[in-house]
């Protein structure tokens, strides 16, 4: 685990050193497009986008994970209509492109109520769109997690006098979390990359910026830097999740 994060950092540093030095080695000037100064300038420009991507990422997680639990409960509800609504919601969210959903959330109010499109709303629309979409995926992950807890756990809890809510909170939920962690990790890694889809509503995140700079300077390097950013971000996410998985794994203690 420690080894892993060390080697990731080493790789990152290596790549960071390698790119500029190979560039100079290949005869790039020290000023202007392709120079070292230009390269750092690109990074500074991109960092605003990095920040936007990170914000989108964390806010989406914060909203979609609890929302997913709610959708999961609705789906398992004994009230039939509630279950049907949740099922339809999940199937639409998973069955249509995220990009389309973003467009609907962003332009929907404008077409329906003629409310003006603001830059501010662009940000909210991105968060709302992502959260709604990811909630559906998380709901399904939670559902499989709950189903993976054997019936005998409910029965043991019942005989020991646990109430329904105690049974869920103390017995089922912790086991469910452990069982779904690998699936959640997958989903989070996908989210890191999916944040780039926010360009669909002209939300300026990392990837949008990289593309702009790349086009303006006619150099592909900014896109590589963006790629590196996603890669490192995901490496951090994976190793964090692995640490959490190990912490929660009561079969390995």
């Amino acid at each position: 685990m420690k080894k892993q994060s060390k080697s990731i950092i080493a790789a990152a540093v290596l790549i960071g050193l390698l790119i500029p030095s190979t560039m100079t080695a290949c005869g790039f000037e020290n000023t202007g497009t392709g120079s070292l100064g230009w390269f750092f300038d690109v990074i500074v420009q991109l960092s605003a986008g990095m920040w936007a991507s990170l914000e989108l990422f964390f806010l989406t997680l914060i909203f979609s994970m609890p929302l997913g639990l709610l959708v999961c409960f609705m789906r398992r509800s004994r009230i039939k209509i509630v279950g049907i609504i949740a099922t339809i919601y999940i199937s639409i969210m998973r069955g249509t492109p995220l990009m389309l959903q973003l467009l609907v959330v962003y332009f929907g109010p404008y077409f329906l109520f003629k409310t003006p499109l603001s830059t501010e709303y662009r940000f909210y629309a991105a968060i709302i769109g992502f959260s709604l979409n990811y909630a559906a995926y998380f709901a399904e992950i939670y559902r499989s997690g709950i189903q993976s807890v054997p019936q005998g756990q409910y029965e043991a809890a019942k005989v020991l006098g646990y109430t329904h809510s105690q049974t869920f909170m103390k017995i089922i939920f912790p086991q469910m979390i452990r069982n779904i962690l690998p699936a959640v990790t997958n989903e989070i890694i996908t989210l890191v990359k999916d944040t780039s889809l926010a360009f669909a509503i002209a939300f300026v995140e990392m990837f949008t910026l990289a593309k702009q700079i790349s086009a303006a300077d006619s150099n592909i390097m900014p896109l590589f830097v963006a790629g590196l950013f996603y890669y490192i971000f995901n490496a951090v996410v994976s190793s964090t999740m692995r640490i959490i998985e190990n912490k929660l794994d009561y079969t390995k203690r």
Partner: protein
Amino acid sequence: MKLLEINNIKKSFGDLEVLKDISVSVEEGEVVSILGPSGSGKSTLLRCATMLETMDAGTLSYCGEEAVRDVDGRSVYASKHDIKRIMNYFGLVFQNFNLFPHYTVMKNVTDAPIHTQKRDKAEVEQEAKALLDQMGIGDKLDYYPCQLSGGQQQRVAIARALAMNPKILFFDEPTSALDPELTSEILKVLRLLASEKMTMVIVTHEIEFARNVSDRVVFMDDGYIVEQGRPEDVIDNPENERVKAFLNKLSK
């Protein structure tokens, strides 16, 4: 005093009539073994008695308190509040233990008394330690279930049930998931409990054990009790043909 009284219980799953008409009662301090071929409804009877299944007809009471009464031939359950209280009279030990895998041995045993019976934590922990010591796993308090052998897990499960201070303890084939050499350690624990006059109802395929430990043997077949009585009568001199056939097959 009758700790458990079941009268004319009936239970079907869809079209399958599993319990046809069963009445049985258990006195305080009695050890009752339930024998019978696979599919005869032994587990279903235990699950109805412990309210993991709802029965279709018949009555059920513990210590004279009615959990299920009969209204026009249908079972009617007492209020949630009453059921919750009555559930404290009994415990159940499962064939596959059903320990909570994310809790340590100690927490498996103490969590329910503390959080569902609202008993004092220090007192419960002290009792739990004594119980686990008695079960021979006093040195495994901080282990997780996956780190224990099947026999040890089942002993934790028994301690967990006992920590609730039940008046009567049900066992559904407590040794069936265990290797033969681990079976004996569980049977030893059951013998110990019997010697302490713990009231127990044990579904088992261990004929020798049933003969040695139980005060009464109940033989079930096809949803009925076909014979019951002292073990030396039922096991050594059965009257019913099906009991004879079953025991013959086992002794071969």
